[in-house]
């Protein structure tokens, strides 16, 4: 843009510039460079670079080399683009592309990755975390054992526990040396210091938490007597562990029952009889989630009828909102109609209220015993708007019609007004009836501009979670189905229920589902857009 202005100005500048031309020249001067702009540019890029460098340092110290490299490369590219004298398109595109990558591509790729893992309840972290968590929870306090007041002491970096036993005797031990009696300095009933060892203050205890958490002082030479551990640095308890981890063999052994749990590549320690120790850890499971989504009979059966209803819901919603919107647009486009402005404002109202809110209000109005519709409009009838399988489907479509027609009304009004009046006049002169004018001339022209919006609207309704969730929550529930799916559930709300409700989450399966849904929507959109090309040939 600006270059063309520059060109025009330089090409057409005559000897005696007019007032207008002088002003244009001034604007061009001020804009094309100038010290101020350069400074702002330097400042902004400096800021970007500073943050990038900070990010790289942080990432490098966390040994995140790949991400650090990406940040560095992006920063270099940004500098190169904005210091270059050319690259005008890139200057405009770069921010958008960066946003696209961070907020869309990354999310998509990450969802894809999760779909191939077993991420979910019980498989939430790494193997090391699972091992340490299992070991921690396998510790059992020895029944009826006393509370031992302890003092944490240090000798040349080795931590020890100075224990006062219930008889008032002082004992000292470390990770390697079992408890042994010592002469200690007492403070009241509690031993607080011993020669040759430094007593740690609470602050020091806190800073050495990791060592203290790992500190287990054997009670005696016999490991079956258990070990003293201190959770808070001031009292210790006698614990026995009922699990043993063999790192070399990668097995967990239950010491009480003798059962061996080994890592058989399923992301959890599993015994020979198939019993799993949870927590397990995250692993890549390949296409398991996709296979499960279509072959597990618990999931596959509902998947079929929910898919059918999803198509019906999306198609009927698009068709009903479009035809109502179109009808109203034609009516309000007629010059003979009085007060069109006011009616149009009214038409937009449903569009102006957030759909969350209106769906909730509709849900209240459709309550069988207390709702406005039954109580007031139907004189106390008890029509099960939301609890009868068929009526609930109808209610969902009705509410979605109410929510969706204003959009179609707006779109159609715009499209209708852009069709030249002459066409209609010409047709009328040729003797065409109004219906024929509409069907043969207006509707095809309208569809050319509206068809892509209808496809987008289909894709939107295909995933219209809000209406379903807020109005019926998929209900009424199909009590014959083995999973919590209802008669008005569409794919996206079923995925939500299968994956995120209840106490077991399965993010891997949910991601696999969302990829399947994405593929369905993409295929339909591609086919539909190809079809609409034939409409465009009308022009």
């Amino acid at each position, binding site marked *: 843009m600006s270059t063309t202005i520059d060109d025009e100005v330089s090409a057409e500048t005559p000897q005696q510039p007019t007032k207008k031309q002088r002003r244009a020249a001034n604007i061009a001067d001020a804009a094309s460079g100038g010290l101020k702009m350069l400074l702002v540019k330097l400042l902004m890029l400096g800021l970007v670079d500073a943050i990038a460098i900070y990010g790289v340092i942080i990432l490098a110290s966390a040994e995140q080399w790949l991400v650090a490299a990406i940040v560095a490369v992006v920063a270099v590219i940004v500098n190169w683009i904005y210091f270059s004298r050319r690259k005008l398109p890139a200057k405009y595109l770069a921010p958008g592309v960066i946003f696209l990558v961070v907020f869309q591509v990354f999310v998509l790729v990450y969802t894809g990755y999760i779909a191939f893992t077993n991420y979910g309840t019980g498989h939430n972290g790494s193997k090391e*975390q699972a091992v340490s968590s299992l070991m921690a929870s396998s510790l059992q*306090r020895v029944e009826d054992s006393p509370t031992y007041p302890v003092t944490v002491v240090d000798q040349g970096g080795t931590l020890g526990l100075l224990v006062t036993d219930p008889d008032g005797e002082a004992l000292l031990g470390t990770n390697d040396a079992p408890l042994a009696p010592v002469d200690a300095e007492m403070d009241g009933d509690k031993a607080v210091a011993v020669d040759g060892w430094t007593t740690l203050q609470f602050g020091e205890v806190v800073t050495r938490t990791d060592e203290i958490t790992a500190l287990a002082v054997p009670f005696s030479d016999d490991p079956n007597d258990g070990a003293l551990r201190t959770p808070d640095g001031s009292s210790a308890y006698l614990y026995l562990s009922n699990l043993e981890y063999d790192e070399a063999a990668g097995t967990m052994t239950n010491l009480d029952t003798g059962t061996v749990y080994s890592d058989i590549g399923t992301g959890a320690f599993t015994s020979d009889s198939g019993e799993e120790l949870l927590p397990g850890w995250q692993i890549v499971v390949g296409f398991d989630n996709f296979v499960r989504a279509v072959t597990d009979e618990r999931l596959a059966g509902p998947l079929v009828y929910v898919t059918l209803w999803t198509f019906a819901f999306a198609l009927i919603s698009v068709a009903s909102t479009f035809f109502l919107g179109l009808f109203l647009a034609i009516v309000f486009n007629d010059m003979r109609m009085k007060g069109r402005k006011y009616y149009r404002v009214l038409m937009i109202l449903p569009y102006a209220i957030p759909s969350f809110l209106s769906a909730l209000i509709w849900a209240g109005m459709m309550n069988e*015993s207390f709702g406005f519709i039954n109580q007031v409009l139907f004189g106390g009838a008890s029509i099960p708007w939301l609890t009868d399988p068929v009526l609930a489907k109808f209610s969902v479509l009705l509410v979605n019609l109410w929510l969706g027609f204003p959009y179609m009304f707006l779109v159609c009004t715009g499209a209708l007004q852009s069709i030249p009046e002459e066409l209609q006049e010409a047709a009328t002169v040729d003797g065409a009836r109004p219906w024929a004018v509409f069907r043969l001339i207006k509707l095809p022209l309208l569809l050319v501009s509206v068809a892509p919006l209808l496809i987008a609207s289909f894709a939107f309704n295909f995933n219209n979670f809000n209406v379903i969730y807020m109005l019926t929550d998929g209900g009424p529930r199909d009590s014959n189905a083995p999973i919590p799916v209802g008669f008005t559930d569409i794919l996206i709300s079923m995925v939500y229920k299968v994956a995120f409700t209840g106490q077991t989450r399965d993010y891997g399966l949910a991601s696999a589902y969302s990829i399947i849904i994405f593929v369905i929507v993409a295929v339909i959109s591609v086919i539909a857009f190809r079809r609409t090309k034939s409409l465009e040939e009308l022009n």
Partner: protein
Amino acid sequence: MRVNKKSLLAAGAVAVIATLGLASCSAGDSGSEGEASSSGTLTVWVDAERVDALQAAADAYSEEKGVKVELVGKDNADIKDDFIQQVPTGKGPDITMGAHDWLGELSTNGVVAPIELGDSAADYLPVAIDASTYEGTTYMLPYAVENIAVLRNADLVPEAATSFDDMIAKGQAAGLTQPFVVEQGAEGNPYHLYPFQTAFGAPVFGSNDEGYDPTDLQIGNAGGEQFATWLGSQGKNGTGVFNTDIDGDIAKQAFIDGTAAFWLTGPWNVGAATDAGINVAIDTVPSPTAEVASPFAGVKGFFVSSESKNKVAANDFLVNYIGTEDVQLELFKAGNVLPALSAAAEAASSDPIVAGFAAVGAEAVPMPAIPAMGAVWQYWGIAEADIINGADPVTTWQKLAADVQAAISK
């Protein structure tokens, strides 16, 4: 180059955000850089409504022990999922506030560390300790015990009901068509119906010495079928006492308007009723049988993250500070829920409402925290709703038991 100025600014902002975004993503992966992990600062996630109640205790602890306690107010609905997702990345808090029925899920995901209450365990209400223990290990420091009870409009019905039928009769004598309300909704609400179910002798799971036993499903026993039959007789085709069209808001409105004299609900709704000027009395749940009707007890408390780098300070703060009478009373004032520490519970019971709930709570049983419970919830309410709406009670109930069994042994 006029337009370019704006685009440059935008580009700068974009690059900044993008860099920060990338950096923070990766910091999440690495797990070694979260500020929560630095020694000497305890990060505690707290239900946003209780931040103020805990602030004094946190400040006092910081002053005495030199460990900074940072309270982060969180929306109660998000705490559990955020905690489960963030702990494995190393970015979560050291301590989080939560409810005991999360325990199965938290423990299965390996995100909580055991906590040792030591001798102080005896100072808590037994139900609180039972609820904080999962498979024999204690994971939670309890601070409040919550259960439902019957709220009675003492102006309409001056005397407590002796049985379920007596309650309905008393309400009808006061001229009410729907004397008793309890929240249900289209998918039922088994939590609120559980007292009646226990009165028929049908708990969800049997229990052993480690707590509830997921392999011993009791819900489908003979008592369960009797309960189902009774529920059907009080539903749509019977007396109409239970109605799935009554949700929480409708039940509340009916009680506040005085069109219902009895309301089965929890302490969280008492404020709404007293604010509306209702003379509220708290009664035990009137039983439809000769047995006691025991509601579920929900216990609230604090968990220590398994990835916390400050476990010593976290344990010390919880056991030796949150576990004191003063702090428990302070938390009680913020939520008006019975404290879990016996001494604090006694002090709080000077309030007749709290004392009423505590009396009902003495009959309460902890809600099962075992993950198998998830399988129960998803069928339970829907079966009860079907029965209330006229489905055959016994077959529906048997199908419920079979569905739950199938889901558990999956």
